[in-house]
């Protein structure tokens, strides 16, 4: 029993953190927000240089094939720096789907090397989300149709943009026609694949929400330490301190839940869906509280476009209901906790 990460995993996380601190400053996020397509080829190339696009790709296709536990740490950093890129959909979700296809499937050789190198973007569409993120600037769309998996070229779809409050999210209504040619996987296998994608998306979003919560806490603490009123930093007042402490508590007890969900996915634990949903709820609560407390501590500044906080708040607000809203995740937790004969209580956590 050891609920800690390996040194190597933490060292990789630290390296990514240092890299993003330099390469993904808030000014750069703002610039990318303002662009037509909302994505930066330059940033994507840098992410690929760090190996982030190749994390899940098998070695045979030019990747490094790490698992959910490595990803979860990376996702926290992607959240902390609010990275405006479809890295998660492409490098984690789409690659996971492609990895599940039978050995020698044509899509693997066609796409996995391009994902690893950073060339290709793949969008993933499932009706749990009404719209498909990054549909337009992706080279391929992996789409749900009655539990089947279809691989569709963006050019074969009719796309209409739906602006989000988070300008780094580019959401599209996708109209397309499933055909025998686009079908990559039948429904009997596909149902399991889509369930797996929903869980991995849930893990990724939980980790990003945690990272966002930490960033909003840090921004709130920085502001409270610098902003002076009544002749002293507002962070010396108890009312302000307690806002920030409440966020720290929420994060402290959400993070291990998210990490356990990652471990459960990595081990194919049958309860992984429950743990992912728990993670989503805990991390979502931490992020929403961080947003509310941090804007309060920022005062009027927090309500402006100018303060960096807005970018992180908006990401959190948007992500909280993607790939399953609170009702969806609560229902999955309830199914476990309220089942007849459920094994709950002391000693059951790791069984």
């Amino acid at each position, binding site marked *: 029993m*050891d609920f800690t990460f390996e040194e190597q995993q933490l060292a990789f996380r630290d390296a990514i953190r240092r890299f993003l601190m330099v390469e993904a400053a808030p000014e750069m996020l703002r610039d990318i927000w303002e662009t037509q397509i909302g994505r930066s080829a330059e940033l994507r190339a840098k992410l690929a240089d760090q190996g982030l696009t190749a994390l899940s790709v098998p070695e045979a296709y030019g990747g490094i094939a790490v698992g959910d536990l490595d990803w979860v740490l990376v996702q926290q950093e992607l959240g902390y720096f609010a990275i405006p890129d479809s890295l998660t959909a492409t490098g984690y979700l789409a690659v996971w789907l492609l990895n599940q296809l039978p050995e020698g499937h044509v899509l693997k050789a066609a796409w996995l090397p391009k994902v690893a190198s950073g060339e290709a973007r793949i969008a993933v569409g499932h009706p749990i989300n009404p719209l498909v993120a990054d549909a337009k600037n992706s080279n391929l769309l992996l789409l749900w149709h009655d539990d089947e998996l279809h691989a569709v070229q963006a050019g074969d779809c009719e796309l209409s943009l739906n602006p989000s409050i988070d300008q780094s999210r580019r959401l599209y209504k996708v109209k397309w026609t499933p055909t025998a040619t686009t079908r990559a996987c039948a429904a009997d296998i596909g149902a399991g694949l889509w369930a797996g994608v929903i869980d991995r998306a849930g893990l990724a979003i939980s980790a990003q929400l945690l990272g966002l919560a930490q960033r909003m806490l840090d921004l709130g603490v920085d502001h409270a330490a610098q902003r002076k009123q009544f002749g002293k930093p507002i962070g*010396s007042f108890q009312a302000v301190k*307690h806002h920030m*402490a409440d966020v720290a508590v929420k994060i402290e007890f959400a993070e291990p*839940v998210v990490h356990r969900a990652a471990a459960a996915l990595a081990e194919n634990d049958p309860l992984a869906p429950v743990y992912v949903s728990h993670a989503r709820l805990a991390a979502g609560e931490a992020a929403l509280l961080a947003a509310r407390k941090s804007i309060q501590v920022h005062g009027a500044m927090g309500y402006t476009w100018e303060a960096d906080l807005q970018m992180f708040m908006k990401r959190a607000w948007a992500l909280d209901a993607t790939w399953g809203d609170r009702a969806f995740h609560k229902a999955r937790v*309830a199914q476990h906790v309220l089942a007849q004969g459920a094994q709950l209580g*002391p000693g059951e956590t790791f069984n």
Partner: protein
Amino acid sequence: MRLQYTAKQNKFRDEVRAWLQTHVPKQPLASFDTEAGFAAHRAWEATLNQGQYSAVTWPKELGGRGCDLIEWLIFEEEYWRANAPLRVNQNGIFLLAPTLMEYGTAEQKARFLPRMAAGQDIWAQGWSEPGAGSDMAAIRCKAIRDGDHYVINGQKTWSTRAVWADWLFGLFRTDPESQRHHGLTFVLLPLNLKGITIRPVRQLNGLPGFAEIFFDDVRVPVSNRMGDEGAGWSVAMATAGFERGLMLRSPARFQQTARQLVDLYQRHRSRADADPAIRDAVLRSWMQAEAYTLATYRTAGRLAKGGQIGAEASTNKIFWSELDLLMHETAMSILGARAELMAEAPDAGDIGHWLDGFLFAQAGPIYAGTNEIQRNIIAERMLGLPRA
């Protein structure tokens, strides 16, 4: 990361479970805040000690089993799962003992620890005074050196279990000219000394769970001092750290309550579901008890790798005390108009323990450092915000 128990850990769990199945009293003991209940709980401590289970983390030579923190968590899980009695000597075993092991002399360890493990000496704490609660550095109770004795005069209050306890540990001002956290000394003393008056204080449930202690020229040998004279504050802070940190409230306690709450909800579902907020609170309770467990396993793993417990001890205190309130408030909501019934009410059936727990949960955010003080600690030491 490896979230499976080893064969050795599973074997230990099986041993503990089997022993508890044989030894845990079939009928719940009376409250340890009654004279008979206190005696029954003391006897239970002796039984635990015979099984070598009263202080599993202590070294073997002092009556423990030398368990690491994971084994301690396993023990606690089995203990709560078995509905075993509350630990009347928790102040001694979980709070004083770790400090004694760090600061006590060899003679003090040999003198106090085995008797503590056996339930022969039950310990009470002597921190708070009428003018020193959250502001513990305002302690005024004096212990003035007179040859090889300290002469104690003053008052302690809110001393839990002190009505029937045998010994007290606490902080006293040995330098009358000193201010704040200087000039304080950590002293251990038997509660039957001449000059000590103990006045029971009834708690919310009507039982004398607290006492006020008055000292009138009480002479305590200097050999009862722990750590150096004047160094009491740092010795006491070590105790406070353990208390908030891991040992005082193991996650198993809250997991057991969460499980009982789920059962209660299931049994009263037709009524409870009339208010959708109840179902939501039941689910939150399970999730938070689980989160506290996971966080504790993480802390145990970090400590095993050489880490320290820092200000996150304060996040623990806030989290479990608020969780305990959530669970008991939810139980009260489920029970509705019957929630007010005392355990002995003829129509209370088996629900009375929820009211007891609800009352005790009110104290959670107050004892062991109020949650307001914990939030200050988090803000200043974890987040680096400026002091007032």
